[in-house]
């Protein structure tokens, strides 16, 4: 076992046990098959998540120690979205404990922790019943964080986890007092005898409670009785994040650890054939090893990250140079071709679009929109630390999918799954990038080269930016027929881009990869527009390229929201109708959308604009409806200050309004960075942007004030990490139109001469 150079007492204690434990569960999981649901129920009861520390396991999520400390297994990655606080809130509400007293650990990727919602889009409830698909996804298992799914997936399971544990504790106390459980209540970590006010702490009851079977599923609290859910509870991770002690993947320090720096081939899909100056590099101070990984890059291992980086930079590589002809220009040529060919898929075809378009009367609109590739640029570059030793593998990584890490390390190191143990650290940003397999594979192959030695494998910023899985470049031709009453007689769109779901899942989980024509992400935000339209067609042309594209915060909505909501604005202006009222008139069958639109109009005082230039956009993504208004001040002909952004959010039942505000603000900044500056371009088969500020970000001086209001809606929870991002680009460019009369149809804005201060 690797010895840690820093304080890590809790992890040390349990890592040995974990190695013993995982095998048992994996074995049972594989043979379960029929009767899987029965197994899942017992698994929830039985399995502790290994790492919950000493104490009594109430179920897969909750352990209570005799000293009354409570540890929760939270199997979702904390990447800033607040999941180490919001999921504990769900448990605490029913368990009747203070959130601040809870300790969070990240368990191993095991069946009870599967995120079934990410695949089914149905809120699971393991305590009542799992469907066949949910059971199947649990057995795979799919323990992943993404698609803004964490709260929805946990909405019943974690509340029942708390409620059943509470009932077991009450039952034990009632037995000891020889009273009816009805005469006991749970409060702040105690069970109280309501007759005589005697009390037991949870720690005093837990050992016996761990053996109790609850006969009846307790009733969950009504929304009106929530004391923790819906409250701005302080984040459990904040204190660690203000004194430097929070551990990100790159902060892992182990005895004797070495540092590996990755040097990718210089063309996309290229192969490194040999290292011409190996002797010279090996002679550099601190360098221990150089090799060409079976996964593509050359990797330099040294005793210090900087020394490894300097050596990697000095490598003289012989490469095959494939795809050297690839450039943004050649990609654009392919896009033009595909826009003029028949689509690979007509995803929606309602009514007779062609007839409606060619009929007399009304106004015909046609517009072409374009957006570039975008990098994730997480502040913490990709990294992963692995130790391979005597048939065992230990890994420290900030990854969005621990079950994927498990599979990758099996493949890259040859170590059996039952002997692989994963420590999930904090993620220095995820945004979809940390769901990818590349850096884990590289780290596995580096560790295999150095048996017995922990190796931290790392991308420099340049390697990270030039070897991302990008938000795809996309072009879309939109057409509409607007009648004199301002109604949409017909809508038609043709999008050309690479298929993100196909491309990415072929890397992450090939068995789940959809063919490009079935990939909803290509036209999400267009095909699911709810505005009333009489005839409608949504088409997709598949762009095939060696470029890797991947899930990027809000995925297809990130570009399609811009296309759709800008074009709606064009339709409104052509009809001579106020853009807010134009949208509102088409939402009569969608009261939740209309309410959000009304709210954001009210927040921004839309009806009394004064000298302000306002632009509006409304998009539902990941289960939540977000309306945004951008308030723009014109300084010069193309120079602006974005003073303020108003956001109204309907995410159904919400868990932590303070975290939601932060996520919406962050989502707006992420989308704003893309709208103003974001562009990845290609030349000679490689990405041209290498670092900041070449790939610039919104910073303090440009960041607007962002006001957020959450609607009170008693419906199942929607996502919150992503839905803030899509509306900002169209809200902003719609505001630019009101200011200048210029319609922005291509991003980023700075490329077309716009300046923001």
């Amino acid at each position, binding site marked *: 076992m690797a010895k840690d150079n820093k304080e890590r007492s809790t992890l040390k204690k349990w890592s040995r046990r974990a190695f013993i434990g995982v095998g048992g569960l994996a074995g049972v999981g594989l043979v379960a098959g029929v009767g899987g649901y029965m197994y899942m129920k017992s698994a929830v009861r039985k399995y502790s998540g290994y790492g919950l520390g000493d104490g009594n396991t109430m179920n897969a999520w909750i352990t209570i120690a005799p000293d009354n400390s409570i540890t929760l297994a939270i199997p979702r990655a904390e990447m800033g979205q607040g999941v180490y606080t919001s999921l504990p809130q769900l448990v605490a509400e029913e368990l009747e404990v203070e959130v601040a007293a809870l300790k969070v650990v990240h368990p191993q990727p095991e069946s009870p922790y599967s995120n079934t919602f990410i695949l089914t889009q149905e809120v699971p409830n393991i305590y009542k019943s799992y469907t066949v698909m949910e059971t199947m996804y649990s057995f795979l298992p799919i323990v992943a964080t993404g698609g803004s799914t964490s709260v929805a997936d946990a909405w019943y399971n974690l509340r029942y986890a708390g409620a059943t544990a509470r009932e077991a504790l009450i039952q034990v106390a009632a037995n000891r007092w020889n009273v009816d459980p009805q005469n006991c209540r749970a409060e702040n970590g105690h069970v109280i005898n309501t007759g005589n006010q005697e009390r037991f702490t949870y720690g005093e009851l837990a050992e016996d409670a761990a053996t109790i079977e609850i006969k009846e599923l307790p009733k969950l609290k009504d929304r009106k009785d929530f004391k923790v859910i819906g409250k701005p509870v302080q984040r459990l991770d904040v204190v660690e994040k203000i*004194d430097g002690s929070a*551990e990100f993947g790159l902060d892992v320090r182990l005895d004797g650890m070495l540092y590996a720096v990755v040097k990718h081939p210089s063309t996309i899909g290229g192969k490194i054939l040999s290292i011409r100056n190996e002797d010279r590099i090996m002679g550099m101070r601190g360098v221990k090893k150089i090799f060409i990984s079976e996964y593509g890059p050359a990797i330099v291992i040294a005793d210090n990250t*900087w020394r490894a980086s300097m050596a990697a930079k000095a490598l003289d590589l012989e490469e095959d140079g494939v795809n050297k002809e690839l450039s943004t220009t050649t990609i654009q040529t392919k896009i033009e071709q595909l826009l003029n060919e028949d689509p690979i898929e007509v995803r929606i075809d309602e009514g007779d679009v062609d007839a409606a378009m060619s009929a007399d009367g009304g106004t015909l609109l046609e517009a072409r929109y374009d957006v570039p590739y975008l990098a994730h640029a997480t502040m913490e570059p990709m990294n992963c630390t692995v130790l391979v030793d005597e048939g065992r593998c230990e890994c420290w990584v900030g990854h969005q999918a621990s079950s994927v890490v498990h599979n990758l390390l099996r493949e890259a190191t040859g170590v059996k799954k039952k002997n692989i143990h994963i420590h999930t650290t904090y993620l220095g940003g995820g945004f979809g990038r940390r769901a990818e397999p590349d850096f884990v594979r590289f780290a596995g192959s580096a560790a295999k080269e150095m048996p017995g030695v922990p190796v931290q494998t790392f991308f420099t910023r340049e390697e990270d930016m030039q070897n991302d899985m990008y938000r795809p470049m996309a072009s879309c031709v939109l057409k509409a027929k607007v009648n004199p009453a301002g109604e949409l007689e017909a809508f038609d769109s043709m999008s050309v881009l690479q298929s993100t779901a196909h491309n990415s899942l072929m890397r992450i989980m090939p068995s789940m990869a959809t063919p490009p024509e079935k990939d909803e992400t290509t036209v999400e935000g267009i095909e699911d527009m709810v505005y009333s339209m009489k005839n409608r067609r949504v088409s997709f042309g598949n762009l095939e390229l060696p470029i890797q594209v991947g899930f990027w915060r809000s995925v297809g909505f990130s570009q399609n929201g811009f296309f759709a909501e800008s074009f709606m604005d064009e339709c409104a202006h052509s009809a001579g109708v106020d853009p807010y009222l134009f949208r509102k008139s088409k939402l009569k069958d969608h009261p939740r959308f209309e309410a959000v639109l009304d709210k954001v109009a009210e927040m921004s005082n839309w009806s009394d604009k004064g000298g302000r230039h306002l632009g509006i956009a409304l998009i539902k993504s990941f289960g939540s409806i977000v309306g945004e208004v951008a308030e723009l001040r014109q300084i010069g002909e193309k120079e602006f200050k974005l003073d303020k952004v108003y956001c109204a959010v309907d995410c159904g039942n919400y868990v932590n309004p303070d975290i939601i505000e932060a996520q919406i603000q962050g989502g707006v900044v992420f989308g704003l960075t893309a709208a103003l500056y974001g562009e990845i371009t290609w030349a000679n088969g490689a990405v041209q942007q290498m670092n*900041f500020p070449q790939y610039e970000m919104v910073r*303090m001086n440009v960041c607007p004030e962002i006001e957020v209001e959450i609607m009170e809606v008693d419906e199942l929870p929607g996502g919150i990490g992503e839905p803030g991002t899509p509306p900002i680009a169209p809200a902003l460019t719609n505001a630019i139109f009101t200011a200048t009369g210029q319609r922005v149809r291509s991003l980023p804005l700075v490329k077309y001469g716009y300046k923001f201060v």
Partner: protein
Amino acid sequence: MELSINGRIYKVEVEEHMPLLWVLRDELNLTGTKYGCGVASCGSCTVHLDGVAVRTCTLPASASIGKEITTVEGISRDGKISAIQRAWIAHQVPQCGYCQSGMIMAAEALLREKPDPTDEDIDQAITNICRCGTYQRVRAAIHTAAKDDEDVSPVIG
């Protein structure tokens, strides 16, 4: 070389031109200071050199000899957290948290220079990148800290 960090003397055997960042992180395991870009653009690696904010990813370690280096680990001393840290908790500033050490060090240095900064002062002094977009709360927290006249408070947590 000898370096004075957070009031302690450390001896390291490294190349003179190794950036201070990597001496802190890899030689001394002071991992609170982060790598973000390596070209002094993002500010994740900000520490104080004699009280002045510097970006350590491009600063040769030898340039800090004889100066007092303060890292994020060194601003809460004797179990007390700083006004900036208190404000950071009050405003729940961090999201992923990776850039926050640098943000906090830049904010600490700003307050030392300008105890009650205007929004324009903040715009000029805080040029760090936060990919999660915490800027609005960073700004609010700096204003709160400027009004915090308590010298010390107990560490929370």
